[in-house]
C-alpha cells in the first residue's frame, strides 16, 4: 500500500492536496460566516476565464487566472463600496461575464485543448513540479496572512461594524479577505477545478459549523475535515481510478451530511421543541 508513495506524482498529489485542503477549509470558515459564498463562486469562474486566456495567448495560465480573479474582487468590492450595486448583483454579472469570456477564449483556440478542461474539473494526479511550487508558495502566503491578522479577521467575521467601532481597520481587512479568497481559488484550480473548488471551500466549514459553538474550534474542525477529505479524495481516485476532483467533493459532502446528522445543534433544536 505504501509503494504508491514511492511514485513522485503521488508524493506531489498528496502534498498538494494537504496544502489545498488546509487553505480552502480555513478560508471557508470566513466565507460561510461572512456570507461570501456567492462572491467566491463568481471568482472561480473569473479564474477559469484567466486560465483559458493564458492558454490562448501563451502566458502562464495560473498567472493570468490570478490577475482575473483579483480584478474581479477589486471591481466587485469597489462597486459595492461606492454603493453603485449590491454585492450579489455585481457578482452575478461577473459570474456570467467571465464564463462568456472563457467560452469565447476556448472558441478562439481553434484546436481542442484537453489541459483547459483539466482546470474545469481538476486533476490532482497530474500536478507538475511547477504547479506544486505555485501551490506551496501561494498557500503559504494565504496561511501566513491569516495567521498574522487572525484576531482582526475573527472580529470582523463576528461583527464588522463593532470591529470598526472598537478600533479595527475593518474596511481594509475585509478587502484583504476578498483577495485571500481569490488567491485560494487559484491555488486549488489545478487540483479540484473551477467548478468544484467551491465545495472544498464551503463544505468543510459548513460541516464544522454543525459541530461546534466556538469559532476558534470551528477553524480546527474545518481544517481536519478539509485536509482529511482532500487526501482521501486523492487516495480513492488512485485506488479506484476515479476522477480526483469529483471524488474529493463527494467525500467531503458525505462528511457534511454525517455532521448534520450528528450535530449537537440539531439535537438542541429538537429538544427545545419538546
Amino acid at each position, binding site marked *: 500500500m505504501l509503494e504508491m508513495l514511492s511514485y513522485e506524482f503521488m508524493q506531489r498529489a498528496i502534498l498538494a492536496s494537504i496544502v489545498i485542503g488546509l487553505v480552502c477549509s480555513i478560508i471557508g470558515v470566513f466565507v460561510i460566516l461572512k456570507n461570501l459564498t456567492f462572491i467566491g463562486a463568481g471568482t472561480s469562474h473569473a479564474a477559469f476565464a484567466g486560465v483559458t486566456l493564458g492558454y490562448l495567448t501563451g502566458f502562464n495560465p495560473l498567472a493570468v487566472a490570478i490577475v482575473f480573479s483579483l480584478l474581479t474582487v477589486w471591481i466587485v468590492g469597489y462597486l459595492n463600496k461606492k454603493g453603485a450595486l449590491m454585492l450579489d448583483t455585481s457578482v452575478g454579472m461577473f459570474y456570467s461575464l467571465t464564463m462568456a469570456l472563457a467560452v469565447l477564449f476556448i472558441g478562439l483556440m481553434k484546436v481542442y485543448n484537453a489541459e483547459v478542461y483539466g482546470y474545469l474539473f481538476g486533476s490532482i494526479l497530474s500536478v507538475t513540479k511547477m504547479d506544486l511550487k505555485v501551490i506551496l508558495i501561494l498557500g503559504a502566503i494565504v496561511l501566513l496572512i491569516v495567521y498574522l491578522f487572525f484576531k482582526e479577521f475573527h472580529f470582523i467575521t463576528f461583527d464588522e461594524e463593532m470591529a470598526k467601532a472598537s478600533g479595527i481597520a475593518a474596511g481594509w481587512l475585509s478587502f484583504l479577505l476578498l483577495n485571500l479568497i481569490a488567491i485560494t481559488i487559484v491555488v486549488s484550480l489545478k487540483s479540484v477545478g473551477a467548478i468544484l473548488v467551491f465545495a472544498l471551500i464551503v463544505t468543510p466549514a459548513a460541516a464544522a459549523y454543525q459541530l461546534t459553538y*466556538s469559532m476558534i474550534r470551528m477553524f480546527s474542525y474545518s481544517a481536519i475535515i478539509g485536509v482529511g477529505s482532500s487526501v482521501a479524495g486523492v487516495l480513492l481516485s488512485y485506488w479506484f481510478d476515479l476522477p480526483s476532483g469529483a471524488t474529493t467533493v463527494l467525500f467531503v459532502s458525505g462528511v457534511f451530511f454525517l455532521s448534520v446528522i450528528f450535530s449537537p445543534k440539531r439535537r438542541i433544536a429538537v429538544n427545545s421543541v419538546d
Partner: protein
Amino acid sequence: MNDNVIIRLLNATISYQNRTAIRDVSLEIHQGEFVGIIGPNGSGKTTLLKSVLGLVCPTSGSIQIFDCACHKLRCHHRAKIGYIPQKGQIDHNFPVTVAETVMMGRYSSLGLFKHPSKKDKELVVNALAEVGMADYKDAPLGHLSGGQQQRVMIARALVQQPEILLMDEPTTGIDTPTQYSMIKFISGLHKNLNLTVLLVTHDINMISPYVDRMALLKTRLYAFGTPSEVLNEKILTEVYGQQVIVTTKEGGTYVIAGDYHHHA
C-alpha cells in the same frame, strides 16, 4: 472654561447623502458624566454616538473627542471608547462563545500581530465576573437571553478598559424588571469606574433618576440639562408631537404619554 470636557460639539451638522441627521448641535460633556440621550425615532441619536467614534463626521461645525477632531480619530482612540450598538438577537447557532466575544474587546488594544496572552484571558474572566456572567464563560452567545447577551456586550466593552462608554438602546427588547436592574448596573459602573457614559434610550422615566444630564434630540438639540430642566411639558410635547404630562413624585420627575414614536 472647563478642562475636563471630554466630548465637545460646536454647531455640528451631520448629513448623509440626502438627509441631515443632526443640525447645528452644540454641547459639552464632561469626563465622568452620565448623559441620557432621548428623542423620537430618526432623530439622530445613533448618529450622535457614531460621531463620537469618528465613524461619521460633521459636514459643518466641529466635534472633538479627547481633544482630537472627529475626522482625525484613529484606531487607538476608538480603543478607549466602549460601544454597544443597537442590536437584534444574534443567530441562535452562530459559533461564538461568551468568552470569545468578550476577548474581541481586547483585540484592538493588543495591536497588530499579537495574539491574546494569559493576562488577556484573566481580564476577560474578570470582566465577565463584573457583569455577573462568569458561569457562562463557555456558553454559546446565541443561547443566552437578550439581557444576558447585553451583559456580555458590556463585558466586551469593559475589557477595552474604556474611558467612554456608548450604549445605543441597551434595554430595548428586554423584559421590564431586567431593564431596571440593567440601568442600575450601568449606573454602578459609571460610579465605580468613573466612566463617561452616553446612553440612548426611549425610556425617559427609567433613566431620569440615574443620569446627570439629558439631551433631547430631534435633529436639533431641543434641550440639554438635568432631568428636571429637560423634562418640560412644552418642549416634550413639541418634540414628540403629542400631549405629554410631566409629574413630580418623591423627588423624581416622570413623563406620561401614550406613545413616544413621532408621526411625521
